[in-house]
């Protein structure tokens, strides 16, 4: 497990997403309400690019005809078959025990902290003033 600097914070504004290749793997980083989430850009069901999915609310119900909406933007809906994944855990809503989107830990670090390492950013110019998005893989 190594830490990879993938972007400056300002490169992924709130509500946006960006895809990266980290150690040969396509990953997508979402900025959802100022929080970053990193997920393998491949749906565990049929391989669709999750970076093209939508972020929607969690809709539940205990009573037919009643829709309880919560956690707006925290369910990642696959762009093909509409399976929903919890952006915090990667778990499939319908099959949480055995189906999950591969999730990676993300953190934000100031450039001054990164200077100390260890981080993989051989070709990435790190400036001490900026904040960076770090993905662990």
């Amino acid at each position, binding site marked *: 497990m190594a830490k990879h600097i993938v972007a400056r914070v300002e490169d992924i504004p709130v509500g946006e997403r960006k895809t990266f290749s980290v150690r040969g793997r396509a990953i997508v980083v979402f900025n959802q309400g100022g929080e970053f989430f990193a997920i393998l850009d491949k749906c565990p069901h049929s391989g669709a690019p999750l970076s093209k999915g939508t972020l*929607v609310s969690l*809709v*539940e*119900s*205990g*009573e*037919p*005809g*009643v*829709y*309880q909406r919560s956690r707006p933007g925290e369910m990642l809906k696959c762009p093909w*078959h*509409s*399976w*929903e994944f919890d952006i915090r855990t990667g778990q*499939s*809503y*319908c*099959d949480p025990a055995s189906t999950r989107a591969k999730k990676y830990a993300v953190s934000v670090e100031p450039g001054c902290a990164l200077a100390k390492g260890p981080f993989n950013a051989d070709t990435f110019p790190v400036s001490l003033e900026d904040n960076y998005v770090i993905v662990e893989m």
Partner: protein
Amino acid sequence: MHLVIIVDMARISFHSSHNKHMSAYRAIAKGAGRSVGKHMDDQVLLDRAFDGFTELPVKGAVDCDVHPAVPGTGALLKYMDDHWREQIVERGIDGLDAMSFPPGIGALGREDWRLPAGKPGSDPDRTIKDVLDGFDLSFAILNCLYHVQGAYDENMSIGLARAVNNWVKAEWLDRDPRFRASIVIPTESPELAVDEIDRLASDKRFVQIMMLAGGEIPMGRRFHWPIFRAAEKHGLPITVHAGTNYRHAPTSIGWPSFFVEEYVGHPHMFQMQLLSLITEGVFTKFPNLKFVFAESGFTWLPPSIWRANKTWKAMRVETPWVDRPPAEIVRSNFRFTLQPSDIALDGTGLAKTIEHIGSDDVILFSTDYPHAHFEGKRALPPGLSDSQIRKICIDNPLATYPRLKEASR
């Protein structure tokens, strides 16, 4: 009139053309396909279609689908209220058998179960002999298909339903303590249906409520919930029997030309209802309610529950009250009667099908008397283990019907 005569003539010549010593069903099968026989492989397959079917190895089975036939509205007169008694006679209202199940059709009255006169299944004593005694049953549940659901006048529909239920009670339930029955209701009028359920529920010999697979609006819709609420209150399962009141064409592609075509299509109505009951949230609202699909077939279940699961994963936000995979709901809340057992002509398919369903709790023994699905008393299709037979014949029905369990103690 001409038509009736032609039909009768056909049946007479058909009856006289077969070998009396042959088993009755095979006689139907052979007689029904006079043109077949040139194709040797086909003929071999047909001749062996019932190889491997076996008789019940256990006593005390429960037959969950037996059809008593109402001879005609005349037989119901003394069981209906004064208004309808007068109207039936004044307006000549008769011939209300369901077009989905015309009692004259050969396959709906097995040769050796037909009566010297009258519709097959219209003589309680014969049914006692053929079914209760013949299969050594502990109980047989009567599903009367007289078509009270067909009436567009809901008052006529409830008038007929009351009469049929009273008739079943007096002529059948009182005749043999092993008979049980389904409460027939005017399904298009839930309010009146609930009155009828409440009226009869205290008689523990009524063990469930019957609806038809085809109706005006899908079964899961809120409109029908008063019926389900009453069912839950009284601890009664709902049986959904094949058939439709023809408010719509019975298939999605229109009106089939042939009876056999329509009959083959019944499972599609059942599958629509299965989806409707699940998607509309009936089991969120009434989690303990059991649905018994009767004469539905069941070998169609695996692909149906697989696809329901898959589509639910995609579209569950449309119906967020469905909080578990449809296949699980089917295994916990739906039951299916044994006949017809639509397995391959060569006798294969059943064991794998039950594995694919993922449960052997869901099948309930039935003969579907007097309809013809098997030969003699060999009602069990090949492919069932001994323990599955025991479950299907006894354990599953008792687990499904609280009133039978109570009575069998």
